[in-house]
């Protein structure tokens, strides 16, 4: 939420983009096959897995959470940076125009993504503090946790919705009908944020486990939420529309078949009779 506000204020979109983009996005919805690029789902899972290396001697989240979280953050950031640089993040069809994007523009988009993520991380860190995170100590932990949560929850939104403020609003603040990129963004943002919020459940418990130290449950919740949202988003943005389109297609064929009987339908019988 906080990050959404930030971006709405920061990235004022060009005046014309709002309505047209909505229409285009809604039109995308009806297209079949989808123009979605599913590679990042796979890659995101891999990035999650890579960033969550098992704690070992040199890189132990219990011994040194800041170091560990900075590693996970850089893995995630690298993943996003590659996708942004190659311009293959969500719902991009590899067309000639995009392939010929100049290098400077690509670098600029990566930098923009980084900057926006940092701002989001700052807002989320502020949120942590407002929710009761320690102020006088453990700054690095809080900031690192916020950076991870921002990368998991907000960066997909940044990359998907860009500067389209109407989409941001629809995706994050309303229950109106959404286009597929908005569903994608909303899924990531809300799933991850809710799980992060709910993971605070474990903080006050007196189990005395090492993973109950300050940022670990929160970040764990964010990673878990991100994984859940991967599944959720895959279902909502890929499987369901495809199934729906398949269903519609088959219905259409059925209707056609009932209306005008297939000329060849009698044919096999005839063959049989012949035999």
């Amino acid at each position, binding site marked *: 939420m906080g990050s959404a506000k930030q971006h709405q204020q920061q990235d004022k979109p060009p005046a014309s983009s*709002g309505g047209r983009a909505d229409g285009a996005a809604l039109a995308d919805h009806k297209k079949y096959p989808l123009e979605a690029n599913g590679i990042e789902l796979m890659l995101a899972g891999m990035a999650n897995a890579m960033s969550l290396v098992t704690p070992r001697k040199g890189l132990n989240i219990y011994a040194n959470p800041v170091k560990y979280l900075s590693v996970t953050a850089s893995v995630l950031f690298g993943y996003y940076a590659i996708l942004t640089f190659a311009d293959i993040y969500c719902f991009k069809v590899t067309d000639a125009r995009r392939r010929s994007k100049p290098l400077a523009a690509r670098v600029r988009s990566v930098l923009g993504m980084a900057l926006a993520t940092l701002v989001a991380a700052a807002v989320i860190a502020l949120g942590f503090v407002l929710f009761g995170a320690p102020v006088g100590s453990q700054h690095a932990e809080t900031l690192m946790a916020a950076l991870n949560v921002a990368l998991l929850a907000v960066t997909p939104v940044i990359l998907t919705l860009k500067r389209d403020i109407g989409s941001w609003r629809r995706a994050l603040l309303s229950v109106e009908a959404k286009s597929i990129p908005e569903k994608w963004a909303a899924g990531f943002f809300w799933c991850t944020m809710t799980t992060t919020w709910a993971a605070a459940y474990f903080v*006050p418990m007196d189990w005395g486990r090492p993973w109950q130290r300050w940022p670990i449950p929160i970040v764990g919740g964010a990673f878990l939420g991100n994984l859940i949202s991967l599944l959720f988003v895959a279902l909502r943005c890929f499987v369901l529309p495809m199934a729906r389109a398949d269903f519609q297609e088959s219905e259409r064929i059925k209707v056609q078949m009932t209306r005008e009987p297939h000329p060849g339908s009698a044919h096999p019988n005839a063959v049989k009779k012949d035999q």
Partner: protein
Amino acid sequence: MALPANKETAAAPVQGNGSAYDTRSKPLLLPARGFWLLSFVMLCASSIGLWLFSRGFLLTRMVLPDHSSASVLPYSHSSGDVAVSSLTDASASVHGWYPAKFDRTIVFIIDALRIDFAAWSEELDAKLNIKEHPATDGLGGTRHDHRHTSRIMPYHNRLPVLHSLSAKFPEQTMLYRFRADPPTTTLQRLKALTTGQLPTFIDAGSNFAGSAIEEDNWLQAMRRPSMHNCNATDTAKYGKNSNSCGGFKRNLVFLGDDTWMSLFPSELSDTCALESDATHLEPADSLDRSNTRGWTRSRPFPSLNVWDLDTVDDGVLSRLPLFLLPPESEEHTMDDRQADSVRTKRQDWRRLVKQQEMLSHPDIVSTRQNSPSSNNLKSAMASDRVGPLELHREWDVIIAHGLGVDHCGHRFGPDHPTISQKLSQMNKAIEYIVDSIDNSEKSTALFVFGDHGMDLKGDHGGDSPREVDAALWIYSNKKWNTKKGAERAARVMEHASAIIDNLALGSSLDQDIRTSWWLNTHLTDDYSSNPNTPTLKPTRLRSIPQIDFVSTLSLSLGLPIPFNNLGAVIPELFASDGDVQGEWGLLRALRLNAAQVMRYLATYTSKSHTHGFSNDALHAWKDMYDRAETSYRELSDLIGQNSRNRRQPRIEEFEEKVAAEYHAFLRLVLGTLRQMWAQFDPALIFTGLCIIILTVIALVLLHIRSQHLALEEIVSRTWKVCFTSGIAAGIVFRALASVQYINNTMVQMTLTDTSIAGYVIGFMLAFCAQLLCKQDKPNALQTKSLNMCILQMTSPHMLLNGTAYAAAILHSLAFTSNSFTFSEDAIVHYLLQSLLLVVTISGWSVLAASNIPNAKRKEAAKRAVAYALAIIVLNRISLYSTVCREEQLPGGCVPTFYGSPSASITGIPLSIANLAMVWLVPYVILRVLQQSQSHRALVAKLWIGVGLRISMAMAALYWVLDSIDGSLASGEASPKHLAGQTAGAKTDSDWSELRIVLARMALGVALGGGLSAWLASPFCLDVAIADTPQASQPTLTPKRTQSKAKQQQLSSVSAPKQTAVILGYGNAFGAAYLVFVTVVFSVLYVFQQPMGGIMLSILLIKLILCAELFDFLRDALTAEDGTSTSSLVPAQMTVMSLLAYQGYFATGHQFTLVSIQWSTAFVGIREMQLYICGGIVALNTLGAFLLTAICVPLAVLWNESLGLQKLRLAPDMYIAKIAGVGAVYSAYQLIITVGSAVFAAWFRRHLMVWKVFAPRFMFSMPVFMTGLVVSLVAIGFAAMRVLRQGLAVGNAQALVAQKFNLRN
């Protein structure tokens, strides 16, 4: 909220119109009867519910300070006749209670030793194929039923030594089922095992902080200085065992669980250091033993780390040989064979220890002392006066408490193979102990027992059969359980059970009280699942209540029975003593025991009038005791008549009969008291909870109904049905209570209770049903179609209210876990921030919505978002102030309430920061009032501008002086410095006089100035003749300038150029009520410590912001067509309640008794006055809740303009609306109370119930009562008064006219 334009008033002459309004509005009285009636009903219902619940839940027992004395026997001499006293009392003062049966005693506690760990099963043994034991089974019949198969658990038959010894020496051993009273936690069990008492919820009289046992117990008795010395004649007279006769301090050794140390800090304090310091005494004289009498050796080991299976056991087992085996230095005095065997035994002991590094501790590794006597090996256990040899020879009692089995259960569960290793280790240990006892020339008793059992998962604390059934095994190297004695004891017990079964009260007692035998069903695995087809034939075992151990141990040691003991002696131990001071040993022991219990009961009933014993019970006890005493007198007559042949079988039979009567008396007392003190009353708890929950439902329904119905109408519709159904239900409940089955579940519930409960339940059920059922006016839910409902579900209103409900439920669910109850402050903060975040998001979604063109809504939404964010930030600031519970401290909680973590007096910087509030609070209030121009009114200027500032300044100054005094008193050099400065010893008394004056003046200004100002004229209204530029331009016609905020302008006919502006019109009611709130605030502010003052000020600001926030949010969320059916009241009340809780925590409180700030009791008074001091502490503690409850009416009154049409047209409906808000606020507090009550009852056998759940419930009662009563009173008096005054003032015209009349 601006007043709808009134065309008529704009043109008509003011005077005439004003008077017309006056006549119309004056007689309109606000109907308050329904409000008060309903308030009374709700208050009664909830207090009856809480009262019933507390009666069933909070069991109380008084702790008596009396001690049994060795020289005073418990018989009441007045009742006994001459013959009795001549028989018994002649030597009583010299010989104590009962001659010691054993010279020495070892108490070896294996924590969580369940009965089936200790019991031996031949059948299972055959399966285990262990062949080392003979086939005779001393415990039960030898049954081989191979058709059934049973699982062999790793704990079965792992203590073979008990069985083999029982078979070998049947007259020296005995195994008992040792039934514990719940809660089966080690601390509670140790209390019971030493005092002989039953656990209750509140042991009234004990201090809450310390855990040391104050009641009389056998450890105290051992450590008590000798009353008289034993002489040789006593020893000669009373047989071979009686060289100790209860008159000296015992030498005590304690090893193991450190829980003992917290219970007996003084009794178990190690005397080692003390003795080595006493160098002026001559070195240990081996002849003069009385000088070294009374030493103690304690080696506690940490008990809390349940993952550590070995440390405690190893600590115990490594140190036991120091006492049981002769020291190494003595080996040269023995012959070679002896020395060799001692050495091998020592090696055996050493092999038992799992952690071998434990053996290198200085306690065990003896060092060669650099003293002239060369062969003196010395360990850290020994001291100058008590050398290693004395340690071995002189100990009287060893208490060893191993935790390995219990920890193994917690860690792995009883089905894990580790437990068999642990039990085998214990088996070895018992074997070695028995071996050393056998080698000792002194008669030594060994008690091996578990303080409780464990359930299927290996945990304990509850009252399930597996948890309460522990084992007790007694062994001694002398015969104490002869065949004849055992037979006589068995006859006594059978006779006693027959007596109890014939008593009226006896039938309701527990089974294990009524009979002394028990079928060991635990050995069969399908315990309680299918009792008809057990896989193993259950064996018959002796069964005793656990507290029987206390009187048994005391008498067998020759000590007096502890004063508070309720247990009976174990008959077998005394039945074999043929002649003790002229009577049968068991008879004497039981008579002593019965007399002691009777003395305790008499003392208890005389000490408190509310002892809670029923008359039936008192009579039954008295009758039974008198019956036994009468029989005893008959017996002594009989013995007196034929004294020559007293061994007659007839006399023996008579003796057994009398003993059985005493035994029956003891069992009767224990059984009835167990019901009273150790049993919760499920019927009371359940009915109490039902009533509270019904009240919650009624409050919520009342809120829903009050939006459409006047309270008077609700009352008139419901009262007939409610009363009749209440009476009917009362009768039904009373009838039900006599049904046998239900009657059995009622422990303390009386028939009056059932009638009252039935009446209230019937009344509330009818009330709820009446409110639920269809009314004449259609309500929202009934008229709306499903579609509309679904549409409404997605509306921001529903989102907000739904989140609020979720927050309330989550808050009440926090009591499901002790961790959550500990950190309730963090949870409240978390829920509050989450709820406010949702508020922000819903406000933001309005702001970001593209399809709302209405600029006014956007403006309102913008303000709502800003206010919500401001409250969020202020909440975070309030979170800074903390007082930590002791449970939170290891979690990194740093108390900041007093400025520094270790101080309990506020530092000067904080109290100076508190001075800033003097400026901040009036400033913020005036700024808020400025929005409606109310700040220019006389009340606002005088009271808020001046009076409030003065009052707060004096209060803040008081606390500055207080902290200066505190820091001066703590500094060591300052008294001299001060004395030099002011030349007198009265310096601090001068300060304190000044402080008292300041505090009283602050209160005086608040109550005298503020309250009277508010009573005189609550409204912040002012009429200004606008000398605006419009007025200077005569060309402009009188016009209604569009009010920027809430401002109403009216034309004045008398001067066409001028415009009369009523300032503060728009928020007239809200501002007037706010003035009242500030008066209450300034009173509460005096009693808050500096940090609390800051936080209370922030709370007030937050509450005002909250009123503003929800007002704007309502504006922002109201759709264009103006149809907003659902209110935001639940969300607002939840936010306010959570703010109250946060304020409570921020003002330096926690829900523990230790966090109550008792020091504030003396603010403004000189000496202790009970009620005033208590009231001040209550104001300090409940300040946040009070302030919030006072602010409840603001939810409706805020930004209501003076010309409120709703109020004028239907005043009863308006009152109903305010009352509904109060109902929601009370409902929230009651939901939290219900949550704490439900989970306190649910966890009533939990480890933490005494420490966490019960105090939380006890705190929730005053919190709820404050919420309910204060919000109702605030509505009933303050809000009503404001509304009434508002109606009396009449209309704007009247106001202007009044003003002009005054001016002209």
